[in-house]
């Protein structure tokens, strides 16, 4: 580095960062794509359009999107209550929001399964209503919502805290009611954070494995998610197929994240 820098340690920190990124992230991920590229386009097409992969992809992306959407609504509500209202137990609830971050996914998986199984605490009521909780696509959705919803709370919460009351006062003094103020003044300010929260929840849900495999029942074509399909390929020592599915999955989710990011930037530009 020819340029003089006042603060020391550029070379060292640059070296460590790039070296560690290289051996832990970049080389292994390129190995994945190189392995997948070893198969021709025809093979790729055959693997990715097989009925089982398509069914798993549909479930993975569909359930993830649905779970992220529901997480966004629930997260907005919970964040609002935690930020705006004082009530007994608020601090404990606030702390417990992070539970899905801290709880190992396997623990979440077996616990949610026991609760939502047809004999479980909630599952039996669902069964009475004719809804199958665990061992169904709905079970997958439940696990993914559990995993995703803290992301929304934690991205929206700081924005709400920093929002201040002036905008709402300005709106009220101009004659707007509470609901109008929420709809036209507060909500637009929260949209970028809600999208970020949605994106984080969505990205996490697509890759989620531990909490889902217990509750889903893992029936091929019905309740099998993509990460599980990858594991299944590995167990049959079909490395190439596993690599192709993984690459396809990564590419699709990167593309989706990129699209959301683009939308985010447009909104940010508008509401800066």
């Amino acid at each position, binding site marked *: 580095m020819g340029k003089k820098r006042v603060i020391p340690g550029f070379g060292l920190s640059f070296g460590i960062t790039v070296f560690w990124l290289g051996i832990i992230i970049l080389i292994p991920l390129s190995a994945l794509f190189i392995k997948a590229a070893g198969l021709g386009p025809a093979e790729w097409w055959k693997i990715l359009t097989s009925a089982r992969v398509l069914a798993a992809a549909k479930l993975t992306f569909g359930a993830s999107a649905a779970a992220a959407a529901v997480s966004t609504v629930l997260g907005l509500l919970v964040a609002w209550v935690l930020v705006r209202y004082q009530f007994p137990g608020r601090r404990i609830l606030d702390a417990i929001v992070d539970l899905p971050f801290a709880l190992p996914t396997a623990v979440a998986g077996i616990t949610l399964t026991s609760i939502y199984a047809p004999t479980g605490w909630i599952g039996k009521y669902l069964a009475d209503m004719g809804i199958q909780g665990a061992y169904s696509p709905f079970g997958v959705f439940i696990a993914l919502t559990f995993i995703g919803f803290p992301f929304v709370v934690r991205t929206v919460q700081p924005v709400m805290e920093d929002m201040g009351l*002036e905008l709402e*006062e*300005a709106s*009220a*003094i*101009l004659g*707007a009611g509470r609901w109008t103020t929420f709809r*036209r003044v507060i909500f637009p300010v929260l949209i970028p954070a809600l999208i970020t929260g949605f994106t984080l929840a969505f990205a996490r849900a697509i890759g989620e494995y531990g909490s889902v495999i217990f509750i889903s029942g893992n029936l091929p074509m019905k309740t099998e998610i993509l990460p599980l399909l990858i594991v299944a390929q590995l167990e049959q020592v079909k490395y190439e197929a596993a690599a192709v599915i993984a690459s396809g999955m990564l590419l699709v989710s990167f593309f989706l994240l990129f699209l959301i990011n683009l939308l985010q930037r447009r909104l940010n530009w508008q509401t800066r």
Partner: protein
Amino acid sequence: MSISIQSIHKTFGSYTALDNISLEVPDGSLTALLGPSGSGKTTLLRIVAGLEFADPGSGHVQFHGEDVTDIPAGQRGVGFVFQHYALFKHMTVAENIAFGLTVLPSSKRPAKKDIDDRVNELLGLVKLDGLGKRRPHELSGGQRQRVALARALAIRPKVLLLDEPFGALDAQVRKDLRRWLRIFHDEIGLTTLFVTHDQEEALELADQVVVMANSRIEQVGPPQQVYDHPETPFVIRFLGNVNAIKDSRNPEAPIFVRPHDVGILFAAEADPATDRLARVQHLFAAGPVAKLSLRLEDGQFLDAELSRQQLDELGLDVGDPVAVRMQGASRFE
């Protein structure tokens, strides 16, 4: 429309923010609430607006004789300009200005065309023609302030309330806008109450100045009267530089005299009945006004201001003895 505030009391927990405040704001006047931070002036403004409520049972706010104490802010018909404007960032300038009209219940809401016309009229009024499609972040500080003003006026308020209207602006913009607001007020004649901590701003702009300190009103009156006839030591100190000189007659209550009211004579001309002797300690003469720091015989310091011409006539230099005559001094006993 006049504003009448009657024995308003406001406490936040154990802290008293307003202590039995009564005030009349005449119809069409431009009144300044002047005081240091923590004096309660912003709380009073917010109570008039309906953003804050006085302690239950403590007093009333009336607009032109009508009691509005229990009327919600949105129905009081006040225009409020926030210190940092509180513009809606995701809306255009025009949408901001139209907001108060578009949130009216559909039975009272003007037709879209009428709203557009009103917005354009207001844009013209605040000299922002053609900027309706911009967003707040594309405007300068002074322009944003005028958008906030136009937004407040759109609902045809009965009174206009401004919280530190120039607080967030640069010195030059501040001066221009101050002058503009005075002219603007004279044109529309709307009863206006504004909060400021800047005495120069209050004295220059307002018809009536309300000096507040420690949750109370210290003095109310036209700017010149408040400046020339301060009623409390706080008012005299807050409205500009002042010397507080102790003498033997009553050491508890000093004499207050402004630097430009300190008369300076040759020591030989001293009248022992009224004058005191001093020496020039420091002299600063760069500028139209010469500033002197004098040391009285008993060791107290005194600031004085002279015109350059007077200084030249006296021919003073550091160390020279002088006689000091305190004209128009105030004493609060």
